[in-house]
């Protein structure tokens, strides 16, 4: 109900300047203002949750789940993936170079800067994409997305970045702004037979139950990736979450690392600026 009122209010406010200067209002994107509004709303939904805790998703907003999680974390289920990822990350390719050579600071403690907008190629580059481009540049086959070794490497890179707040920048480039706008549109667009948008569950209904699950707030949701989901029984990357979310609302998912998903990740990570990386995470 409360969210419904807010929506109507926002619509009424937005409609006024829209009438006066329709083209002007539509062309002007203001990511910083969007981010501020997004964060203020999330914090007002969960006033008791400290900023740093938003990276812990459902456990930040539900005490019984948090208790179970704390027990699980005595033996984090992603531990084996972390070992595998570290070993793969440090093992040189056939040409003697390694993953570290493809990234700033040798790939350590940089998760919070992904995804970034590459002004040279004019597209959003996610960590998964960067990992596979690194492999290809060194004569290795790209890894399949969503799970397996790529998730393990993600896990290791995230683990070295724990505690570092998301620091996503939108450069002064119309293409970057367009990517941001596309991601934003994706997030708020209803899709699938169930006619849900990302925001329906992760903004409007955040903290509530969806059957047995507690919906994590969108604010900070990507800080925990990659995740070990008990439901999956394995690790999953952001792609895996996006494709399964899309399937769950009965829409046809995009391909992993499709432009639509990269832009969505760009928008969502930018909205979460300031939330420290907690990945890899464990989710039910």
């Amino acid at each position: 109900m409360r969210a419904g009122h807010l929506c109507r209010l926002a619509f009424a406010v937005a409609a006024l300047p829209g009438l006066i200067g329709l083209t002007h209002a539509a062309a002007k994107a203001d990511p910083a203002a969007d981010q501020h509004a997004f964060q203020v709303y999330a914090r007002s939904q969960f006033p008791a949750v400290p900023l740093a805790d938003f990276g812990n998703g459902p456990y930040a907003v539900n005490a019984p789940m948090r208790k179970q999680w704390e027990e699980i974390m005595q033996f984090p289920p992603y531990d084996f993936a972390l070992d595998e990822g570290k070993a793969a990350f440090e093992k040189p390719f056939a040409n003697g170079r390694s993953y570290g050579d493809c990234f700033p600071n040798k790939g350590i403690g940089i998760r919070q800067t992904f995804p970034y907008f590459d002004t040279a190629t004019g597209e959003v580059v996610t960590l998964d994409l960067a990992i596979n481009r690194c492999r290809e540049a060194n004569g290795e086959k790209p890894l399949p997305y969503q799970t397996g070794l790529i998730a393990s490497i993600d896990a290791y890179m995230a683990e070295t970045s724990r505690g570092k707040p998301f620091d996503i920048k939108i450069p002064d480039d119309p293409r970057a702004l367009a990517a941001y706008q596309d991601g934003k549109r994706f997030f708020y667009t209803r899709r699938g037979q169930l006619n849900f948008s990302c925001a329906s569950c992760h903004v409007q209904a955040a903290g509530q139950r969806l059957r047995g699950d507690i919906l994590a707030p969108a604010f900070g949701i990507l800080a925990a990736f990659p995740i070990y989901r008990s439901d999956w029984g394995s690790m999953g990357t952001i792609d895996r979450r996006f494709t399964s979310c899309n399937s769950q609302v009965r829409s046809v998912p995009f391909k992993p690392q499709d432009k639509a998903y990269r832009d969505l990740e760009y928008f969502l990570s930018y909205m979460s600026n300031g939330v420290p990386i907690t990945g890899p995470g464990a989710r039910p």
Partner: protein
Amino acid sequence: MPSTIRVRAVAAGDSTDVQALIQHPMDSGFVKDSDGKLIPPHYIEVLTFEHDGKVVFTALWGPAVAKDPYVKFAFKGGKSGDDLKVSWTDNLGKSDTSVAKIMG
């Protein structure tokens, strides 16, 4: 190869609390892969914990146990600094062993 066994054993009073996590596919033999072929059975049959030359816990597992199984139990005895030996054997004859120190 990194160990497939994670153990945490803590001595508390006259008993020791043990938790362990084991990395294993635990394939039941009834699941098909994406090509429709059966994934052959591959599961742990025996898991044992030894303290001071004596078996303190035995688990007879089978195809119904979940992947990457977790086990928790307590036994009488054990003190800080003692060794706790964990080993498993599966239906393909593979095995792994790990020795952990009991914490105080």
